[in-house]
């Protein structure tokens, strides 16, 4: 209780009003500034605020094209991100045409791009329950395959497997096999927060901090009987809770040329150039 006494009553009130209850140790000069700035940081991350140096450490990088979509400019450790595939979610929009369960909206490309920068900078990733994930596309997106573990069929132990992976892997991508009980969901989210991992849900997830949804995909390069698929224009919308409550939108080329992403405004000449060959 020593440090608490040192803080004045007014400051304590400020801390409490900001919901930053567990942070007394660094409260003294910090708490005065807290209400002025982004006071929903605690709600968004559920983790402690740290200084500028620590913040870069706690946020895993993403490619520049996806940066504006995420409130922290990257994947904040301890958070849950969902990439909506249009399967299993309560539909407030009319469902897509026939075969919507097949995907094709661009969710998988968004998912791979989301992992790419972190994987390249040395993070470990695991993908649970997506047997159809194209490893060649993953490599083209920039994911380091030797640091990517795949669990194609976790079976009934799905949540146990995800929980075990959250213990040690930086980014765990999980495709829920069906509706997930709220208890299981909150337990996994808590596990991710406690271990400083990022849980990326491929599919619907009620309680995610950020939900990315790809739509409006338009392929280029294919004509009637000629050409080949080259690149796709895609709109990705991010909605979420807390800091991510504001709807953000990005238009980008995904994939652009030889895999990877590019902002929508880039000249078409860049698309022709071999950006990077998957290796």
């Amino acid at each position, binding site marked *: 209780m020593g440090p608490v006494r040192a803080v004045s009553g007014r400051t304590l009130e400020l801390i409490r009003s900001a919901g930053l209850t567990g942070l007394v140790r660094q409260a003294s000069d910090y708490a005065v500034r807290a209400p002025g700035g982004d006071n929903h940081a605690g709600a968004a991350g559920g983790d402690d605020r740290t200084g500028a140096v620590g913040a870069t450490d706690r946020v895993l990088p993403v490619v520049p094209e996806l940066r504006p979509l995420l409130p922290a400019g990257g994947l904040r450790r301890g958070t849950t991100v969902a990439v909506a595939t249009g399967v299993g979610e309560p539909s407030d929009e009319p469902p*897509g*045409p*026939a*075969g919507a369960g*097949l*995907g*094709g*909206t*661009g*969710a*998988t*490309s968004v998912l*791979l791009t989301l992992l790419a920068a972190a994987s390249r900078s*040395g*993070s*470990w990733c*695991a993908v649970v329950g997506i*047997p*159809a*994930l*194209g*490893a*060649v*596309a*993953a490599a*083209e997106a920039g994911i380091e*395959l030797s*640091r*990517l*573990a*795949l*669990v*194609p*069929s*976790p079976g009934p*132990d799905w949540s*146990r*497997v995800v929980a*075990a*992976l*959250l*213990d*040690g*892997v*930086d980014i765990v991508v999980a495709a829920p096999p069906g509706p997930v009980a709220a208890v299981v969901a909150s337990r996994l989210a808590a596990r991710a927060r406690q271990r400083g991992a990022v849980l990326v849900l491929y599919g619907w997830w009620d309680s995610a901090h950020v939900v990315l949804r790809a739509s409006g995909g*338009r*392929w280029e390069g*294919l*004509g*009637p*009987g*000629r*050409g*080949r*698929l*080259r690149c*796709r224009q895609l709109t990705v919308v991010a909605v979420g809770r807390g800091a991510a409550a504001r709807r953000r939108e990005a238009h980008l080329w995904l994939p652009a040329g*030889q*895999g990877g992403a590019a902002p929508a405004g880039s000249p078409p000449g860049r698309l022709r150039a071999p950006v990077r060959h*998957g290796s």
Partner: protein
Amino acid sequence: MPAEAANPRTLVVWCPDWPVTAAGIVDGVPTFAPVAVFAANRVVAASTAARAEGVRRGLRKREAQSRCPQLVAVAYDPARDVRAFEPVVAAVEALAPGVEVLRAGVCALGARGPSAYFGGEARAAERIVEHVAVACGVESQVGAADGVFAAVLAARAGQLVPVGGSARFLADLDISTLDRPQLTGLLRRLGIRSLGGFAALPAADVLARFGFDAAYAHRLAAGRDTRPLAVRRPPPDLDVAETFDEPLERVDVAAFASRALARRLHERLAGHGLACTRLGIEAVTAHGEELHRTWRHDGLLTEAAIADRVRWQLDGWLTRAARTGQGAPTAGILRLRLVPDGMLTHVGLQPGLWGEAGRQRDRAGRAIARVQGILGPEAVVTAVLTGGRSPGDQVRLVRWGDDRGAGQSDRGDGRSDRGDGQGGDRGHGARTRAGRSAPWPGRLPGPAPAVVLPEPLPAVVGDEAGGVVGVNGRLAVSAPPAWVSVDRAAPVEVVAWAGPWPVDERWWAAAQARRGARFQLCLADGRALLMLLSAGHWVVEAIYD
């Protein structure tokens, strides 16, 4: 005589036609039938029945088959021969220590000890032949002479050459027994046909005219083989085992037991200056069921790593029992045994300079190994890119923790291959990492599809008139695709398409042959599909998601 003092008296155990016998032991080839083992289209070894039909060493396959039409042809596999010979060596070692394996099928041992113990070389030879026959079911012959070279020839003749009689025994043998085709061919043309004749040449002239190897052969022919046996040291007994009075049924109890066992194993390994890269965990339940699983690790297994793996494995076995899944043990674990494998000399581990990368890797490795404990080691895989035409072919899934380069040099266990009928074929040998950069005509241009369906979905692609689109032998499309119906769903309009990219793979192997044409389709709802038309049927192979 100084020569005799230098020549160690040697017993040689020789198993005739070992490649054939090994094929019988490992692959279950009936060795009483005419069998021949071929290497590079030439007979390496033949069974007795095949020899009776005239099959000889060095014959071409076609010639051997013309002499004996019912001949069973087996490919030569040195690894199989050595593997099958190991029990024989162990059986010989049970009677006399200090065995040197000369090659698969032949091993040598010092004669002094056994002959003194069993009362004469003849008695010792008898005991060895009998023990090998009983223990391994393998026929063998024993010969004794001064020096290994003479003893091998004596074993083939089934003789015990008397002490000091090696030179006389060798003198009458054919020069080809030296097993140096070039030298013996030359000597034969010079009119020297027996070892005795070769030995009679002055040693200095042989050295001057034919070189060092010939000079060594000359010494052998003269019965002056002074090389001592390079004795095989039996591998130290490293496995640790523990029997429990009460069967382990709870995970926490098992964890406690595993920790103690892991410490014992680690201490034993450290005592030998070794570390292991593979760990076999064996358990026997109270009902006598035997469970076994091998864990691999691409680093070295430390004490904590061993304990963790044992605990996870026991956890996996016991919780599976609780959930009454299939293959679960029906009772608690009564006996536990740890068998280290893949030994390396332990030189200490060097962590990364900044520590970070290694620590992160360790954390991830532990988490993934834990999942392997829950689901089984093959449930976690990692993808390796290889050469191929379709997006599915370009990926090889390797069990996590296995060597990512494996499957090229050593196939290990073929489980790592993708189970789509491509696994285990001969084509994989060619698909090395270089195969990735090699041209694959007909390979689809990038970008690659993000979703590759493990099971292709049946589909129908139709034209304006409502008929199904087809491709003829000249790769002409019957009509432009206008709609597609995937898995009997309502048809969707096709706005753009490209193709066909013809595929004609493995036409040389009927069972794996694949012929078809690939198309890229862009649909009105914004989706893009990779379709394959094969034998008149359309399937969705992948989705550009």
